[in-house]
């Protein structure tokens, strides 16, 4: 397809770029199946209680109506009650909301019925005509009040190293509370599922998912089917940022409805439904205390956190983790509890846990540096360590100091004044701030099939999906490197659970995990070619494998350059049109390598704050990443840009507001939940250390999707403090909040 277009700019672009700029890339909801019905969720208008009565008579008489599915007429599915299906082998209890499984309402906006109709217009109308009577009960949604009641909190996770609350005994210390509101992923593509029972026990789904294999397994277990009877297709994913890391109510709803009406069903969420049906970053309260001696050596860190979960599932994340291991400190204690509320279940959102935790930690360190009259970068360098403090293992690679130096240079840190309000441009105070981010860098298992065609094309296959970070582009580069052939000859095929099992795209592990799989498959392919040469070509007979070189699919004897054979000749000789190999690359065992593995980032922000109106304007952002070798520069850079933009939203605008008199989210639209738009974005510089991590995998690359946002909100807060001397500890930082704080 590429070749047909007459563009001057082909070499560096994304492999799926052309389809995206021409509108040809198809996302989940854009598939049509014959005789497909349209489905729309009807959602509860109470926060807690029971459905007393559902009247669907008006709805069913509307034009185009097919059916209305709800708890009374929803087919019984094994995964909703595994005990009732003892004969089925592969049944697993459905995780999360068992939509239409009972008459209970657990949060405002819970799907309570599914309108099915001949068109989207009709389905919308049918949904409106469903009449539901509820028996409402008292509910609890007010996090800020309820978190103060210890009897409401669940599951304390405590950690102590050295002395508890040691910071209080330090000559210099600060302690403060921080609040992060509910934030929502809100990818531009709304979650959608199309379900089609091809036979009585085989089902095909187009689904928005970050992991086709995980969705396949969830659906198979819901119906007690062998996995091979379920096929999940997710060829393009229009953003997700964590929202598609698990299957939500739309999946069972569509699959069950398709079974019930015996037609394919398309269910697309509405934007308001995106606010509480596919997870969100939980609200969190934190208290952090940090103490140091006069020279800036950290003497104690105490980090407490509470975040919300739902009443029907426990969701926890690593909010206090970075405090345990990032900085050199002998006395650290943390405590983390969750508060169940009558809201839907939260989930991982970009930089899960750490984005919340590093906001509090990095602001606290900034406050302490200020108290110590130390430069915040110097303060961090003072407490820099190459040993992960919790595990006491050395890091496989840590180049934070390079990030400090380069970032400081690019943002113009030398112009920063230690004292707030000393730098002014006209009516605007000028401030500089920085914040550090850290996230685990793992490597999971992945299976990749590599196919070499006689004409020299290489196809790689794995059942992953890509939410926009550029997986296929990066994988093509890994393969091109391993095989020594041009990128145009390589195609990466994904987005289908029928392919060899690939990992979930999440937790910043795709490049490492899948890259290792691709690398291994390509190396194995070369090995296979060598075997073929030894077996089939006389001049290679009895040659030792390590005496055979291979370059660009040409094999030659390392002792005698004149002895050579091409892959094409080998494939022809074998009388086949292609050869292939399937390889599974194992996950990383950090115990084996005795190293701690993380990616790091440092973000720098220059801000203007108006001296009279408190208006906040970001002027310049520098974001630096230490994530091993950068495989695909353009897409990695874009990911960092995106993380910075997400961080700007987290710092300055994003906040879900719950009306505690009804339990309803009162700003569930993109007009009222403010995400960053064009005019909010200053110039952003991106820089990478780009040093291969020698331990993590064969390609030296680590993930960077999460570190792109972690620590960013703190950098903004720190810059605003540097400008004004005012610290807002409740996100988002607004001019109204700034106006209320005393310098």
């Amino acid at each position: 397809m590429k070749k047909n277009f007459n563009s001057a700019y082909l070499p560096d672009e994304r492999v799926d770029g052309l389809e995206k700029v021409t509108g040809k890339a198809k996302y989940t909801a854009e598939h049509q199946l014959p005789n497909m019905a349209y489905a729309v969720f009807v959602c509860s208008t109470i926060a807690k209680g029971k459905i007393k009565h559902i009247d669907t008579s008006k709805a069913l008489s509307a034009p185009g109506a097919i059916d209305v599915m709800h708890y009374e007429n929803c087919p019984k599915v094994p995964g909703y009650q595994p005990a009732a299906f003892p004969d089925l082998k592969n049944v697993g209890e459905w995780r999360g909301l068992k939509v239409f499984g009972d008459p209970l309402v657990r949060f405002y906006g819970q799907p309570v019925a599914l309108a099915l109709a001949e068109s989207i217009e009709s389905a919308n109308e049918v949904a409106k005509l469903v009449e539901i009577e509820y028996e409402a009960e008292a509910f609890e949604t007010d996090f800020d009040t309820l978190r103060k009641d210890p009897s409401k909190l669940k599951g304390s996770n405590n950690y102590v190293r050295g002395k508890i609350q040691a910071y209080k005994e330090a000559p210099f210390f600060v302690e403060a509370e921080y609040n992060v509101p509910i934030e929502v992923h809100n990818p531009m593509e709304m979650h959608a599922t199309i379900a089609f029972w091809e036979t009585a026990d085989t089902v095909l789904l187009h689904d928005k998912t970050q992991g086709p294999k995980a969705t396949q397994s969830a659906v198979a277990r819901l119906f007690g089917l062998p996995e091979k009877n379920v096929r999940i297709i997710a060829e393009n994913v229009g953003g997700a940022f964590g929202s598609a890391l698990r299957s939500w109510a739309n999946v069972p709803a569509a699959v069950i409805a398709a079974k019930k009406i015996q037609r394919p069903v398309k269910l697309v969420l509405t934007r308001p439904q995106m606010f509480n049906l596919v997870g969100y970053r939980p609200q969190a309260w934190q208290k952090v205390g940090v103490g140091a001696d006069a020279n800036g050596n950290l003497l104690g860190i105490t980090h407490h956190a509470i975040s919300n979960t739902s009443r029907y599932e426990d969701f926890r994340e690593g909010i206090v983790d970075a405090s345990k291991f990032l900085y050199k400190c002998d006395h650290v204690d943390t405590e983390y509890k969750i508060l169940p509320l009558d809201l839907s279940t939260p989930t991982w959102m970009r930089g899960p846990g750490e984005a919340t935790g590093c906001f509090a930690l990095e602001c606290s360190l900034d406050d302490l540096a200020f108290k110590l009259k130390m430069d915040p970068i110097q303060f961090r360098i003072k407490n820099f360590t190459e040993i992960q403090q919790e595990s006491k293992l050395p890091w496989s690679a840590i180049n934070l100091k390079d990030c400090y130096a380069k970032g400081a240079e690019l943002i113009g840190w030398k112009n920063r004044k230690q004292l707030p309000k000393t730098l002014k441009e006209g009516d605007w105070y000028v401030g500089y701030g920085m914040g550090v981010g850290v996230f685990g860098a793992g490597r999971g298992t992945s299976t990749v099939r590599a196919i070499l065609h006689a004409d020299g094309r290489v196809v790689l296959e794995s059942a992953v999906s890509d939410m926009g970070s550029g997986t296929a582009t990066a994988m093509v580069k890994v393969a091109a490197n391993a095989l020594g052939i041009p990128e145009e000859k390589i195609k990466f095929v994904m987005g289908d659970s029928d392919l060899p099992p690939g990992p979930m795209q999440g937790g910043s592990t795709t490049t490492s995990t899948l890259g290792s799989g691709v690398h291994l498959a390509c190396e194995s392919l070369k090995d296979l070619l060598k075997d073929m040469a030894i077996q089939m070509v006389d001049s290679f007979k009895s040659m030792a494998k390590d005496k055979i070189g291979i370059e660009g699919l040409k094999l030659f004897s390392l002792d005698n350059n004149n002895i050579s054979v091409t892959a094409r000749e080998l494939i022809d000789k074998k009388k086949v049109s292609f050869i292939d190999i399937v390889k599974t690359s194992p996950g990383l065992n950090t115990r084996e390598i005795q190293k701690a593995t993380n990616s790091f980032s440092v973000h720098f922000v220059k801000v203007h704050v108006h001296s009279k109106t408190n208006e906040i304007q970001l002027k310049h952002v520098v974001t630096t990443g230490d994530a091993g070798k950068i495989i695909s520069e353009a897409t990695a850079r874009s990911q960092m840009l995106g993380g910075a933009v997400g961080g700007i939203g987290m710092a300055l605008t994003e906040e879900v507001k719950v009306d505690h008199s009804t339990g309803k989210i009162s700003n569930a639209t993109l007009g009222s939940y403010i995400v960053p738009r064009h005019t909010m974005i200053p110039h952003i510089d991106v820089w990478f250390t780009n040093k291969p991590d020698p331990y993590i995998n064969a390609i030296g690359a680590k993930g960077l999707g999460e570190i792109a946002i972690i620590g960013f909100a703190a950098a903004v807060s720190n810059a605003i403090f540097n400008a004004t001397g005012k610290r807002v500890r409740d996100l988002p930082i607004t001019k109204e909040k700034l106006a209320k704080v005393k310098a």
Partner: protein
Amino acid sequence: MASVGIVTSLIAEAMPLEAFVPVPIPKQKVSLEINGKKLDLMVDIRSTLQDLLREELGLTGTKKGCAMGDCGSCMIHINGNRANACLSLVVYNDGNKITTIEGLSNGDQLHPVQAAFLKHDSFQCGYCTSGQIMSAVTCLREGAAKNREEIKKYMQRNICRCGSYQNIVDAIEEVKKSGVKV
């Protein structure tokens, strides 16, 4: 596999499909020109251009990010002006000329804005991209691309949740500077 059969038959037996009497869907005749092609259609009077394009005509390049005018991912051109396809009922568009992302490139020749988006990696997931490009084209045509700040103001109606804003402005600015006709 035998056990699988049991489940499916259980489900089928428990839930017979209720019979229903179809009610006619209110329709109206509309003439449109879409990407240079004249179409006479009988459309549901409740249809938006967005749903007509995406669900009926297979022109899924026009996206749905909110269906309430907030995000810009459905941006199209109606008689040369940019418009949110989600906010425009088809029946109000009788006789209108509509251009979607699919009608922007000329055969195999990419529109300069599309080419610039490729060059500057002005997208990640690609879901907002059609809308961004359609807005960018009218931004340039209407002379609103004077400088980066003006470009940003004009593009304010288009959200990119992946955060490709800087690369989008880079692309538009480059096309503007190149002076090519858009």
